[in-house]
């Protein structure tokens, strides 16, 4: 009888909850990010100088870092749940999961590096 329902023994409750928590945080951070970066930085009015200046106030990198983490987590966890919907084989699942994890780690590294660099770079 159980052939019709494969218990995966994988709970989804934590992922589900975190997806929602990260969404709420993102909602705020993303709007902030868009306003500060995309709206206020339009036109040729932004110079390298200005960007660096802002990037070096104490709160800015913190917010950027929070945004980076939540967005990566939320996005990749989202992709994972999409992939899970369409793959039932264990091997494929493992492949996808490792892939997403790698992407996540690499981007986290690159992103963090960017934030730190922007913070520490001296304008020339």
């Amino acid at each position, binding site marked *: 009888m159980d052939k019709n329902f494969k218990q995966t023994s994988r709970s989804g409750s934590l992922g589900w909850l975190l997806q929602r928590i990260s969404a709420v945080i993102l909602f705020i951070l993303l709007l902030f990010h868009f306003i500060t970066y995309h709206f206020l930085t339009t036109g040729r009015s932004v110079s390298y100088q200005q960007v660096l200046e802002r990037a070096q106030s104490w709160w800015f990198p913190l917010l950027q870092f929070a945004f980076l983490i939540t967005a*990566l987590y939320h*996005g990749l966890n989202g992709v994972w749940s999409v992939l899970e919907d369409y793959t039932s084989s264990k091997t494929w699942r493992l492949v996808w999961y490792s892939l997403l994890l790698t992407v996540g780690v690499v981007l986290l590294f690159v992103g963090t590096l960017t934030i730190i660099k922007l913070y520490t770079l001296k304008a020339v």
Partner: protein
Amino acid sequence: MYKRTRFYDFTYYNFVGSWAWILHRLAGLALIFYLCLHIWVINSLTHGEKTFNDVMTFLSSPLFKLLEVGLWGVILFHAFNGVRIIIVDFFKGSLAQKKLFTALIAAAFVLWALGSYMLLRHAF
């Protein structure tokens, strides 16, 4: 026995719910794809003023501005529909999901128009 539906049944009459879901999913995937690129590109900002200016010029081109307007729309849809999902999950949103959808999407549309204006005002 014959299995007809393998992936998605496009002949099924699609209600608000299922279109919203497909779009939300596609938007989410588009966003994470964009985020990956974004992190990569921003990283180049740290390679000195010359690169910064090259990138910035590209980012300020009308073509890119138009892409950004689209991105803003995708973000708003995903974000506001995401809020709808969360209201459904935790605050009995199912009981008025269609009204919720209309209201939130209307709000998103207003923000989209405003944002688009901000993005485009210096572009051309």
